[in-house]
């Protein structure tokens, strides 16, 4: 070929080569796709993270930097917006050249990927994790009996309130359902809606009420079976949950249906509502000066005969089955399971997460210590509606619970519709 004056024949020849080049990887189908941005066997691991919020992202960067100093495979952190991550995770896992390690949730959600044979068996990592609680082990085991998950931190849910407001209204944190109703009545008499909620854009917040009422009335095993498709939503026992809920419905903030939970947090802090059943992540949206005034109490006990269960959503990591360097990945995950690694993360993130490793130190604030004590004394732990079932079942709960809050007198109809919708999800 001489310069630009390539004649027609060389041009055609060039085209042929291009075409062949395009065909070759095409024939190789999906076994391996060369050069698609991955990190093939160069002693590098890719960690796909959904922790895109400012603080959490910084904490992850610190964590990875600390590991990279220990030698071994270098980890490359790739943070993707959480909203994108949620929808793209199945695509990542099923792609020909998937990232190695992923941030995600323990329990049924992780197991649903294990059932599709997409996750790496990390049983050997667990050999060094003997001090982890039984609950953590169960959460990290797939239905096929393999360990597929490494938990690193968890948080808790509770009835949060402002100490100064409770003092002003002259109420003390209730322990039982009767006391709780009395507190609601008192707060309402002061002209404040007692129970705050935020369901606009975040309808899943209502599931916390369903979860807690169900584990308080029917117990955690029933709750788990129900969410796994081994129970029915039109069961009279489920109806009992809603009749109990009706007792407190008049105390809910009527404005709560229109704004998301973040605005509901503002309402609580501003004294426009009395209490708020929410996870500790809400603290990130609180102004710093209000944080010292915040306290919580355990969701009231309804039936003392039912073993006390708490919601403790657990976060951690799993790895793709197709990792290029399984030993390096397992070494990294074993490091993530150490108390040292979890402390690095917990200290640099928002501070309300608790290390999954029992030897790991959590933040020293009274609030976190109280939350940790509550979770450790619980007889049973549940995750959260979507984590105990699947992301596909969550919308059916959102629809049913939102409808219940609007039309509490149509429980039977709502439960029948919910059961039908759930059956469709379980059959899919």
């Amino acid at each position: 070929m001489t310069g630009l004056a390539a004649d027609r024949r060389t041009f055609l020849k060039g085209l042929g080569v291009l075409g062949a080049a395009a065909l070759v990887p095409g024939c190789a189908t999906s076994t391996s796709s060369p050069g698609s941005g991955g990190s093939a066997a160069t002693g590098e691991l890719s960690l796909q993270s959904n922790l895109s919020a400012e603080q959490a992202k910084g904490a992850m960067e610190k964590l990875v930097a600390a590991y990279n100093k220990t030698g071994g495979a270098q980890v490359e952190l790739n943070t993707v917006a959480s909203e994108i991550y949620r929808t793209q995770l199945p695509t990542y896992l099923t792609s020909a050249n998937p990232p190695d390690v992923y941030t995600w949730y323990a329990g049924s959600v992780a197991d649903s990927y294990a059932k599709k044979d997409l996750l790496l068996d990390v049983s050997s990592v667990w050999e060094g994790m003997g001090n982890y609680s039984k609950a953590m082990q169960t959460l990290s085991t797939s239905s096929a009996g393999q360990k597929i998950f490494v938990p690193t931190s968890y948080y808790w849910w509770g009835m949060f309130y402002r100490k100064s407001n409770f003092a002003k209204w002259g109420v003390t944190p209730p322990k039982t359902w009767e006391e709780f109703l009395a507190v609601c009545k008192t707060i309402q008499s002061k002209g404040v809606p007692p129970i705050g909620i935020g369901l606009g854009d975040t309808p899943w917040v209502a599931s916390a009420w369903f979860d807690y009422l169900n584990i308080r009335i029917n117990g955690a095993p029933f709750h788990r079976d129900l969410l796994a498709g081994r129970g029915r939503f039109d069961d009279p026992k489920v109806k009992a949950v809603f009749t109990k809920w009706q007792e407190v419905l008049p105390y809910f903030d009527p404005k709560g249906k229109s704004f998301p939970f973040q605005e509901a947090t503002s309402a609580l802090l501003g004294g426009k509502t009395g209490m708020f059943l929410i996870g500790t992540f809400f603290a990130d949206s609180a102004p710093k000066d209000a944080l010292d005034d915040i306290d919580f109490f355990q969701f009231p006990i309804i039936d003392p005969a039912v073993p006390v269960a708490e919601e403790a959503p657990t976060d951690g990591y799993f790895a793709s089955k197709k990792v290029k360097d399984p030993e390096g990945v397992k070494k990294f995950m074993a490091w993530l399971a150490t108390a040292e690694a979890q402390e690095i993360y917990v200290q640099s993130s928002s501070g309300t997460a608790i290390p999954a490793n029992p030897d790991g130190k959590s933040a020293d604030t009274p609030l976190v210590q109280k939350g940790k004590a509550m979770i450790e004394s619980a007889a049973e732990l549940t995750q959260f509606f979507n984590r105990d079932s699947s992301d596909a079942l969550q919308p059916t709960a959102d629809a049913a619970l939102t409808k219940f809050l609007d039309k509490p007198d149509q429980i039977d109809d709502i439960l029948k519709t919910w059961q039908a919708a759930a059956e469709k999800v379980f059959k899919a």
Partner: protein
Amino acid sequence: MNRLKTTGYHLSMGLISFLWIAPILWVIVISFRSFDDVAANGLGSLPRSFTFSTYVQAWQDADEFRALINSLLVTIPAVLLSLGLASIAAYGLARYNIPFRRTVLLLMLMGNLLPPQILLIPISRFVELIGYYDTLIALIAVHVGFGLGFYTFVLHGFMRDLPKEIQEAATIDGAGPGKIYASVILPLTRPAMAALGALSFTWIFNDLLWSITVIRSGEKMPVTPALLGLQGLFVSSWNVIAAGTVIAAVPTVAVFLRFQKHFVGGLAIGAVK
């Protein structure tokens, strides 16, 4: 009476314009509020603080500079390529008696009627198969592919209406098809090209769906997914997101202001013969 009419007109039009622009103003106001102000008083309240730090934060946390560069690296080649190819295709289809040209044109348009959502998985898998997954080239190719049909259709309509005599005169002067395209037809099509250019720039720049489908690395993401990255798992700093949005809107607004004249004129393309 006449004065009353004019005042009424201006009043009502002013009100409608205000309604139109109010959400944008609201975003700008939020972008200057501090996090504690938003958290304590809610998004809807009047501002009680003023800060520029949100802009700094958005610029750094979302890495907006890199994201904007990525966006431009995708948008500019995609606009140039798709308009270039579309104008060549339209030239051929409009000015020459190519057999089945109607079918070709309809086929191209049909592709545009397909909802892009059903193509997400095939495209993501195909891009992976040819080894271009997670590259900006893949994103450019997708945008060119999707834009081509519509741009060709619009340009075809415009070129068809150019007088035949100009082309005949050029032929007599000894110009071949390539020369006619480059020196006669293309300059005459400029208004349509400018309008389409501004339109496609906004479309491609504002795209989110395709970028998250073919790109996986955070550092290769264009500005729209980067903005999404400012949203936390549970809690979002809306003031920082608002600031990021204002920054991300600058390029499209600049392009629009530059091509405004053509943009408005271009909307009427093909409307009157």
